[in-house]
């Protein structure tokens, strides 16, 4: 059995997932179906949204915040972050610009989470 705190809503139910024979799983402790779905995902294939920064040249800011367009499998999170540390972009950048398409074959794009203009002077 595995236990989670549900993060779907502020009620924060204490969820327990039990694997049954034949690949079935049961979720207890949830007050709603969204919580049940979250617990199942979290048990079978946990996912996380990548948010971090990448280096940027010639901009009015030192680092460009970026975000994934969808969550990636949890086990890919740190590999993706390491990959993004090696990336450098150049100003100007508009929020939503794709910084890395299909990161590590996950199907998720990494996009700029803010805009950056060219530094004056």
């Amino acid at each position: 059995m595995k236990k989670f705190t549900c993060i779907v809503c502020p009620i924060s139910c204490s969820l327990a997932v039990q694997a049954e024979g034949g690949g079935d799983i049961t979720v207890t402790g949830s007050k709603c179906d969204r919580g049940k779905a979250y617990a199942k995902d979290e048990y079978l294939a946990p996912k996380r949204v990548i948010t971090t920064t990448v280096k940027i040249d010639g901009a009015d800011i030192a680092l460009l915040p970026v975000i994934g367009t969808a969550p990636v499998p949890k086990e890919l999170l740190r590999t993706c972050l390491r990959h993004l540390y090696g990336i450098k972009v150049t100003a100007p950048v508009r929020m939503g610009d794709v910084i890395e398409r299909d990161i590590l074959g996950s199907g998720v794009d990494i996009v700029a989470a803010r805009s950056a203009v060219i530094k004056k002077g």
Partner: protein
Amino acid sequence: MREITADIAVVGGGPAGMSAALRACGLGAKTVLIERDAALGGILNQCVHDGFGLLRFKKQMSGSQYAQQFADAVYESSASVMTETTVLKLIPGECGSKAQSRQGLYTTGEKTGGALIRAGAVILAMGCRERPRQQAGIVGSRPAGVLTAGAVQKYINVEGYLPGRKAVILGSGDIGLIMARRMTLEGIDVAGVYEIMPSPGGLRRNVAQCLDDYDIPLRLSSTVTEVHGKKRVEGVTVADVDAARHPIPGTEVFVPCDLLVLSVGLIPENELSRDAGIEMDPVTGGPVLDNFMMASVPGFFAAGNVSAVFDLVDYVSDTGEAAAEGACRFLGGEALPEYVTVRAGDDVSFVLPGKIRRDLPSSALYMRVKRTIENAVLEILADGKPVYEKKHPIVTPPEMVTARFHESAGSGVPDAGGLTVRILGD
């Protein structure tokens, strides 16, 4: 000195100030927005994590995305934006007899120079700041490596520095929890989070997704009793505390670290407001407000974390809009109706706003509860009679509780007795 005239001056370009400026422009007011940083966005600019905008936009955004969306809209609006500009002093009602330019704001900035802004109404949106080490009870020598969670966030996310290798976090406020995860992902070893209270200071889902997810220990009813190191932090002594929050002798443990991160609460930033003679609420730390978000000095409004510390930016944006609507109504010269007092009743620590003008059809109330209660009922009494009731599966102190109070839903206009908001348990 340069003089600038506007209908509405907004002090602070974070989420509260940006939404106030946008709504004020939308209502046709000539608006000037003053921000001390180089960019609009306030503290959202250092919040690269997601979880913002769920209520307003029904999607998960990072703090920087939320800020950029509003900043773009402000720059497309008719608002005049003064960045890298600091407001030095507010002068209520002394800048001439004309109602439209009654309030004065002295500002200074490298690019904007010294200026006197005359405005009919002022919206205070200065936000809040973190409690410093003295308020966390940390005394003694001052080695490098004691930082607030927000400072660590700025070093890592904005400036690009790692301020340590091994961290201990004191306090379990949301920024501390967010930074526990962020530091871990950036390669800083987080030894643990120590919280003096018996329950976490931050939202439970942040405990789940920032601590549990990375196996970072959270030790409740414990605190840091000593910081070791002369030039640089070399470690801290932590100890369990008793019910009176006093360290229990014999429980002290030395934890080696080179970074002590403080996440021990936020304080609304109201030096300008106090200096202007605005009445403050000792519980919220912000001005006493009515449901137009107007303070005790006519023509001065407040929005966002300067009025009380909110847990969600969505609410902050909402109060910015409410303040702009109030300011425009004030400028219209309409006589404001009488107000009644909104009191915090059983298990409620405060209600914002603390006063309600009587003719408003609907008004948002924000409150914090004193303790965790399951199967709670939020009840509003007008002159002692129940006029509103809403069930909540659970209420907890870190999570703001909101209610939209409609007079029409109740048994009539509250009289001198005012409104009382209380939480009932099972």
